[in-house]
């Protein structure tokens, strides 16, 4: 079986080169190109026709999420695997909606990356990383803006006690044990405005 052809898209040269060398240690995958932003990625996908595209989510010019649709159009046979920092699972739903196979954290091991690449190319959807309900995500976005429980309750038309319950549920699901930790998580998950 021919090795899987992988396109690496990340705006940091050290990360691109590092990923390229990591992939070189697996005999069944091979890096066929790299790109530093979404625009270059579309060009590179057209040129190299990869099987899997590793796509960093936070890049200048054309960020990862916005690049998914044009990439699907340019290279419809390529499976797209979005790479993110921790806790950008806020992006996950948006990424999948736009046609990505899934999201993998940069904190994952090289072996996990390898497995995710094989799964993506075989059309196996990756497990969802952090299952929060839409209501919980809404509460989370208010927490990120330093809103008090009372403010959130008023904004959503629910009781402060209910806000508290949502927070407790999220903390359990995310394995976070303090409110400060939850606020940190909320702020790290905040999506930047799409260009």
């Amino acid at each position, binding site marked *: 079986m021919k090795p899987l052809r992988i396109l690496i898209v990340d*705006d*940091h*040269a*050290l*990360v691109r*080169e*590092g*990923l*390229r*060398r*990591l992939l*070189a*240690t697996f005999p069944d995958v091979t890096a066929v190109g790299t790109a530093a932003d979404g625009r270059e990625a579309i060009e590179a996908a057209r040129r190299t026709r990869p099987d899997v595209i590793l796509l960093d989510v*936070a890049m200048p010019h054309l960020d990862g999420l916005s690049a998914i649709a044009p990439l699907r159009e340019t290279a419809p046979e390529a499976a797209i695997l979005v*790479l993110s*920092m*921790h806790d*950008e699972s806020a992006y996950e739903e948006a990424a999948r909606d736009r046609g990505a196979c899934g999201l993998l*954290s*940069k*904190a*994952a*091991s*090289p072996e996990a*990356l390898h497995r995710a690449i094989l799964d993506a190319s075989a059309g196996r959807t990756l497990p969802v990383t952090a299952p929060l309900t839409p209501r919980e995500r809404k509460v989370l976005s208010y*927490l990120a803006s*330093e809103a008090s429980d009372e403010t959130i309750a008023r904004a959503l038309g629910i009781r402060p006690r209910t806000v508290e319950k949502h927070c407790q549920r999220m903390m359990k699901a995310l394995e*976070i*044990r*303090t*409110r*400060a*930790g*939850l*606020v*940190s*998580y909320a*702020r*790290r*998950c*905040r*999506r*930047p*405005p799409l260009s």
Partner: protein
Amino acid sequence: MTEMAPIRVVLADDHTLVRRGIVAILASPSIDVAGEAEDGRSLLCVVRRTRPDIALIDLSMPLLNGIEATRRILRISPETRVIIVSMHADRDAMRRAKRAGARGYVLKDAAPERLLEAVRAVARGEESFPVDLAPTETDTGTEQVLTSREREVLQLIVEGKRNKEIAEIMTRSVHTIRNHRARIMRKLGVRSATGLVPAAERLGIVRPASGMEVR
């Protein structure tokens, strides 16, 4: 002609894929990767154990960030020279790295050759800092309001650790940690722990999400 001994390097970055990639970039007969760490506290253990020539550390590691880790490393292992490797291209972070005693600062969007050059230069006793970084809006004025110990506690609070866990991590009593917490909140004019989160970001103790960066 005598062979130069390989430069002994340890690496710390919580993004395992990035860290392993850098290990692969460093692979060469002249460099020996003596250890790796995923967070600032285990980094200190690795440094104590290996006494490396160079520690390549990420700016924003969990448990103990790169700046505070630099200070501690220089006390634990004064022969070790620190190079910060970061995606944050801001002058303020670089200045703080220098003040903490780092000998180099390499950006993650720099070419791999730049990293290797920095490692060799610092191993020779030189410094390696980029000259063209943009100024930032972080609030450096109030950085010195908190002591080094208070900054360490603040990072752990904001990372969601409870007092008991912070006490264990820092090998102090819970009573001491509670005192630190109260002093930090008083100094920063904040009335609840959740209010500490944006303050910690402004002070550069933790970084906000990549989308919120000035860069």
